[in-house]
């Protein structure tokens, strides 16, 4: 009756033991806080504890009727759609280019991975400087048209700056995945297509892209879920949610409400809602996108 997996371990408790440390970490740092957040979302919690009041669904009613919450939610979705699409599209273009036997494609493969080593907060600091209206790369624009680039005042400019930093930080990982996908395609397919008279562009759209759809899908799923939460470091270092709340994404709003405003209940409620949203989003992606992708080669 022994299955092939069990045959790997002499003792049946050994695999359990090996998994326990990691499982413990996940439970302590993931499931316990999540449970706590869901629990608090039904209470009015005092910051220093002592005297929390059960309020049922009142926190949810308050959050869901708060226009600020919906505004932040809308911004989060816009950021997610634009930011993630670009964060996959740009590396895809780079990967296709690096996959072709162009001059410098070898060093490019190397260099494009480097940003992976830079922490989100550092990226924020660097990009805040790059996009500084007086000293940054867009400052000449301000000399010709004064005030045209002002991320400290203009909400749209600040949002563009945020997306640019996010896309840049997403390049290395997605680039590696997509390039690996491209490299795994057998060269014979290119050759066959070329023989049939397909040009370089044709081969990209009809041969390469359809065949690396699993990788594109993977990067999209990861990007969509990542962009909801990982934008925090960028917002915190670049804009603090401003100006006028224009870059106040849901994750940042939760942080500010909870930690600066001591609204633990409101922050917990928003966390619960955000979590449900991300789970539904990923589920939807698998249901609608994932089914159309052919993993067989």
């Amino acid at each position, binding site marked *: 009756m022994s299955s092939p997996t069990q045959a790997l371990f002499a003792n049946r408790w050994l695999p359990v033991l090996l998994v326990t440390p990691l499982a413990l970490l996940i439970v302590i740092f993931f499931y316990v806080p999540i449970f706590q957040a869901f629990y608090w979302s039904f209470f*009015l919690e005092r910051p*220093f504890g002592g005297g929390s009041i059960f309020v049922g669904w009142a926190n949810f009613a308050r959050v869901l009727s708060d226009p600020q919450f919906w505004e932040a939610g809308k911004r989060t979705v816009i950021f997610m759609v634009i930011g993630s699409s670009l964060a996959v599209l740009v590396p895809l273009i780079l990967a296709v280019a690096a996959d072709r036997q162009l001059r410098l494609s070898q060093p490019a493969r190397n260099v494009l991975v480097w940003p992976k080593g830079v922490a989100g907060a550092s990226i924020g600091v660097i990009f805040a400087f790059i996009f*500084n209206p007086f000293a940054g790369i867009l400052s000449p624009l301000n000399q010709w048209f004064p005030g045209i680039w002002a991320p400290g005042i203009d909400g749209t400019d600040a949002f563009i700056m945020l997306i640019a930093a996010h896309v840049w930080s997403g390049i290395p990982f997605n680039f590696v995945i997509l390039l690996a996908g491209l490299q795994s395609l057998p060269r014979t397919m290119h050759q066959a297509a070329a023989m049939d008279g397909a040009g370089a562009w044709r081969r990209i759209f009809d041969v390469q892209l359809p065949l690396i759809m699993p990788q594109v899908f993977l990067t999209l799923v990861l990007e969509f879920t990542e962009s909801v939460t990982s934008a925090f470091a960028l917002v915190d270092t670049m804009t603090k949610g401003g100006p006028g709340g224009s870059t106040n994404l849901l994750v940042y709003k939760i942080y500010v409400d909870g930690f600066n405003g001591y609204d633990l*209940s409101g922050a917990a409620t928003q966390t619960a809602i955000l979590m449900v949203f991300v789970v539904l989003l990923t589920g939807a992606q698998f249901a609608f996108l994932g089914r159309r992708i052919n993993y067989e080669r």
Partner: protein
Amino acid sequence: MKIFTLAATTAALMAGAGAAQATDFEFWYGNTGSVETAILAQCDAFNAAQSQDKVTCVGQGSYEVSMQKAIAAYRSGNAPVLIQFFDAGTLDLMLSDAVVPVQDILPDVDWANYIDGARAYYETSDGRLYSQPYNASTLLFYTNKTQLEEAGITETPKSWEEIKAAAEKLKAAGHACPFVTDGDTWRVLEQFSARHGLPIASNHNGYDGLNAEYVLNTTFVVQHLTNLVEWRNEGLVRLGVDTRAGKYADAFNAGECAMMEGSSGSYAASAKAFEGKYEVTVDMAPMYEDYERHNTLVGGASIYVMKGHSDAEVAAAKAFLDFLRQPEQQMAFTAATGYVPVTKDVLGAIEASGEADAAKYATAAIGIESMNQPRTEDSRGVRLGFYVQFREVFMEETQKAWNGEQTMQVALDNAKTRGDELLRRFEQTYQGVKLP
């Protein structure tokens, strides 16, 4: 195994013995830069002055972070004995049940020694101080005298009307940034309302009960902020983000802007940056000519004693608080930072030192004078729940007015609506709790 047990027991015993000799306790603060240096100097001085107690001063990087950590630490029973916290969190701490009023644990101290302006902000309705004022500051008006004179302005402007006229002259003389501000809540709302005698919220800014409502959208503040936006469009006023330096005080210190409203706590930085280049003036914050001057509020931060500590730790913390109140300590702190001493004996000591006119005490006399102006029921302070969050709301809404998305009236109407929601939720969170 035996050796290990023995070693552990010895270590535990020695730790116990150590505690009997010297009581270690922690003090958390939030300041950085030159203020942090001054705080650490005081901690070292305390430890050097006696061997009975040892304070460990832990910098948390900002008031907010310090508070976040204190909340988490208190919930898990690891809170420091002493924590410094800023003005806006006063009510949150008063109702937290996590702190003991300083006046209760130090009943013999002459608390009347504190100037009324400092007491009013931190005392209960029956006049007990909840926290010991520490780095007290107030709002002052700074000018770059050298640049003003270059533009032909010989008299330092005193009122907003004169500031506008001076700004126009500066602009005519080719100055790109006559007046700089960051539109911060403390500067443009709280200090402005207090000295013009305007309420921010009903119930005398919340002093008379938790059922207060914001009224800031009905006072002269609306007109003032509308003026500032208009003056910015005319090129007379700039926001910190409009400047090359990026921050308003940096822009003033670098000589990029000629006038600013700023905390007395930033005086040391300005004086240092100006050395050999410009001359700085500090004065009371400007008034509109039609209004009578009232006091400005005490800003900065005060020190709270947190619950849940042994008698020995509390005794050590008391000794540290006593140490910080000493006139020479306060004077050194003022000289190093520009924060204002808020006890009457220190003012006397500065007078007696013969250095009252020295640059290092430049903010002391003027700051005290500003806080000692006639008080109204609405200029005692701000006692509103979740007020830290309201400051964020105010900034968010007014920023939309600065960039032209909405008028200042709409911005303040929105701030009122959102602020009232915060107050109602605070009231609900602290159901049945009476304002001390």
